[in-house]
């Protein structure tokens, strides 16, 4: 089995799904699930293999190369598994919508394009797949029309800017080395001057920074996440945005190489140190902006930006612990954010697309699986011990502290504590508190929504208790970049400056939990009461949603809101408006009316004649 076959299955399957959709929706649905499952199996079969093979020479004489190694395998498996789950989730979510054939086609094409990106062995195919991904993402973001069109437009404009800077980088490679094969460039670039390397890192960094929404290039993300259909938002936040992380790994550690990247620049102005600080800023500011959001998906979207900061911080810091933490966090983030968007999607599906946190509430008894998904998702997002997010964050914190960068560690830690506030509001306002009257007869989520949520919930706990499973793979990625091997066991990491043992934590929590539960059972039996039967100190508790949950952190809002304007977004809008004004004034001249153009020609001729008569230059 070759990589070409894999990509043909991915792309061909997408087209075939579209054709089948014209025949029958039922057949199309099962085929879409089937083809994505086949891709998971096919990718899994490549485990541990290292292949690099040119398959086509026709592109201006440049060979197009496909290759696989541990890094691409890791990303490919995550991509295929998560898109399978989100396609299963789509089955009921998209059921009664229009243009569903188009939706499935685009979902599968995005999937195929991402596989193409991670399997590309040269920068031409990388760029082609990158563009396929960007454009099909644009179509999916604008799927709902209305405000989604504006969100999609914002995304594609920023994406194009990124693509152009990346193209500049690729062209400069070609001009310098006359090859675009990644492994060839990586050997040739070793002798390049540091100014050139910095240029390469910056142009590619802008492209990948836009995709990964690193501050100040993040502004496309919140609107796009909020407006895209929820199952696609899951893919977008889980893997598609993280193609930026793949890109950073590719340019920093595969092409340029660790030794070169980590010694670029003087003292504290090193390239990777500045990038780490950008990561830290990306953690802190969006986390606090997330607290102000009242839209469930916007809130998660801001966390998507913030968590991307942890990955950048870990990768840019460039120790073996930091790198492992950054890559592991990419996987963990994908798992829990997909789960969270599915949880929101499940609620939206039953409540007519409601995602305003101020008007939901009390759904825990109606949609228990969605609640459990939400709870485990936010635990992963916070990084609670025994969930996957904890291990990756622990790796990042530990390396920052031990290497003596406490302010970076502080940014990372305070980001976590800010996260608690907003995700508690997220969970509370959707599932806890009062159940509004209009949702009294709501149904629980259908099986095709519950299944992916259960799988992802289990994955969060599994990787939290046995982090060694993915860390083994990540460890070999790290060593392939030339980093020191970590001492990974199945349940943690051992080292002299601090050991992590998740199985001990797990046993302690389990035993303590069981003991407390037994004590709880021994006490006098409690009486279950309905939600209206609560003590309000003699005051009346309103029967419908009470007012206080609407502005959950009001005292804090009043204090921090003036400091949390998205100035960067406003600046971009100002640029856009200025360009528009400029073009508007140009339009006064280029009116499109022939009469004006005749007048311009006559005026110009008159001017020439005047010049000739006066000074006789010709």
């Amino acid at each position, binding site marked *: 089995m070759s990589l070409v076959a894999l990509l043909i299955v991915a792309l061909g399957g997408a087209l075939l799904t579209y054709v089948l959709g014209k025949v029958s929706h039922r057949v199309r649905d099962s085929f879409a699930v089937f083809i994505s499952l086949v891709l998971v199996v096919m990718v899994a079969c490549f485990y541990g293999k290292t292949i690099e093979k040119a398959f086509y020479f026709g592109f201006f004489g440049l060979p197009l190369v496909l290759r696989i190694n541990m890094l691409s395998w890791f990303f490919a498996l995550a991509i295929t598994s998560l898109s399978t789950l989100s396609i299963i989730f789509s089955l009921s979510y998209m059921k009664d919508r229009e243009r569903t054939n188009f939706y499935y086609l685009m979902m599968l094409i995005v999937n195929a394009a991402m596989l193409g990106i991670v399997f590309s062995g040269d920068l031409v195919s990388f760029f082609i797949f990158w563009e396929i991904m960007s454009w099909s993402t644009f179509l999916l973001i604008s799927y709902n029309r209305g405000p989604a069109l504006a969100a999609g437009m914002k995304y594609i404009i920023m994406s194009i800017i990124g693509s152009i800077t990346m193209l500049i980088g690729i062209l400069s490679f070609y001009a310098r080395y006359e090859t675009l094969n990644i492994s060839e460039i990586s050997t040739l670039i070793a002798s390049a001057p540091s100014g050139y390397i910095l240029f390469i890192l910056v142009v590619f960094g802008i492209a990948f920074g836009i995709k990964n929404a690193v501050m100040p290039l993040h502004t496309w993300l919140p609107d796009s996440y909020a407006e895209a259909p929820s199952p696609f938002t899951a893919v977008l936040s889980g893997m598609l945005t993280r193609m930026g992380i793949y890109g950073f790994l590719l340019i920093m550690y595969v092409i340029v190489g660790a030794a070169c990247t980590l010694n670029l620049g003087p003292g504290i102005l090193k390239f990777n140190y500045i990038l780490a600080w950008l990561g830290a800023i990306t953690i802190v500011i969006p986390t606090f902006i997330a607290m102000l959001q009242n839209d469930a998906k916007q809130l998660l979207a801001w966390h998507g930006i913030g968590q991307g900061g942890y990955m950048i911080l870990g990768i840019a810091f460039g120790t073996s612990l930091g790198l492992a933490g950054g890559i592991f966090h990419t996987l963990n983030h994908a798992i829990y954010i997909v789960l969270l968007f599915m949880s929101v999607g499940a609620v939206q599906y039953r409540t007519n697309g409601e995602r305003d946190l101020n008007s939901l509430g009390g759904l825990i*008894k109606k949609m228990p699986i969605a609640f459990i998904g939400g709870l485990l998702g936010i635990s992963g997002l916070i990084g*609670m011990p025994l969930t996957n997010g904890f291990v990756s964050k622990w790796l990042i914190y530990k390396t920052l502290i031990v290497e*003596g960068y406490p302010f970076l560690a*502080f940014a990372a830690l*305070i980001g976590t*504590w800010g996260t608690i506030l907003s995700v508690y509001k997220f969970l509370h306002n959707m599932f806890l508190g009062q159940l509004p009257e209009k949702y009294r007869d709501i149904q629980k989520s259908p099986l095709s929504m519950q299944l992916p949520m259960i799988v992802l919930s289990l994955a969060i706990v599994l990787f939290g208790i046995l982090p060694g499973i993915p860390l083994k793979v990540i460890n070999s990625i790290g060593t392939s970049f030339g980093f020191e091997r970590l001492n990974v066991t199945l349940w943690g990491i051992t080292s002299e400056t601090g*050991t992590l043992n998740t199985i001990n934590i797990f046993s302690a929590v389990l035993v303590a939990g069981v003991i*407390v539960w037994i004590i709880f059972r021994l006490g006098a039996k409690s*009486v279950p009461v309905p939600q209206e039967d609560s003590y309000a100190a003699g005051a009346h508790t309103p029967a419908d949603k009470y007012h*206080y949950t609407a502005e959950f952190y009001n005292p804090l809002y009043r204090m921090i809101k003036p400091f949390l304007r998205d100035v960067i977004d406003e600046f971009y809008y100002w640029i856009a408006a200025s360009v528009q004004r400029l073009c508007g004034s140009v339009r006064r001249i280029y009116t499109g009316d022939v009469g004006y153009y005749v007048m311009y020609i006559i005026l110009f001729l008159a001017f020439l004649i005047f010049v000739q008569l006066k000074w006789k230059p010709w």
Partner: protein
Amino acid sequence: MVIKVMQIILSPVLALAVGVFFLGLARKIMARIHWRYGPPLIQPVIDMIRLFYQKGVSHGRMFDLGIILSLAGSIVVVLFLPFGGIAPLSSSGGLLVILYIMLLAPLGLALSGGQGANPNISIGISRKLILSLGYEVPFLLVLLAVMTHYKTISITEVVNAQQRVGWAIISFPLFLSGLSYFLILPAILGFRPFDVSSAPQEISSGPMVEYGGKYLALATIEHAFALFISIALFVNLFLGGAANPVILFVKMLVVFVLGLCVNAVFPRFRIEQAIKYLWKWPTLLAFLGLIMTLVIRS
């Protein structure tokens, strides 16, 4: 092995005893400062036993599970803290794990209370979370200063280093951090003037309002553990830990009574005032401490 199991069983029991004693002592000392006689020292124990056999109301499964999770989380933190030479699990992840498991208790209470669907609970939880963001800023700076100074994330290493070279609170850059921790201690414990989240006269004890019977008993036990944890952490980080549980207890007692006397005379802050205070002096001290630590290290 047997000794280790004994330690694991013994340390939460001892911690609970200390915590409950402190609860009783707090009421007694407060009463004396207010020129009252006050309840007997074992009043919290009497209350707990009585409550345990009284009927309570339940608002659903999360309401029950949250309180169990909260108490279990506190017990686990105790296992990670060095307890005067005993530290059953402290080698499994160090200070960072302690920091994170300390989250289980408030989060469990918040989830449990969340299902209570009572406006007072929502107000209380909202205030508690805002307040915790307030004190976490200086708290994290303090912990980072300690970890950077001793170049480790293991709390037993911090204690051992202090046994060798002297207490952190009297060493130069760290006394700033220690002072900052002492200033935010009442906020961590939810004592006056920082009792905004449980304010009994204002929002009927906030998150506790729906608890009765065994729920209230378990919540009180959890409070006792929380009391033990934050003071024991202070003693371990800044007062050189202790060689045996008795010395630890004496040191904790001194810190507790000192803190209580300072704070018993203040009226309650509003939540904004609390945040403003926490983000001003303690943060400034902690920040200076961290910068000094960095300067001295490099």
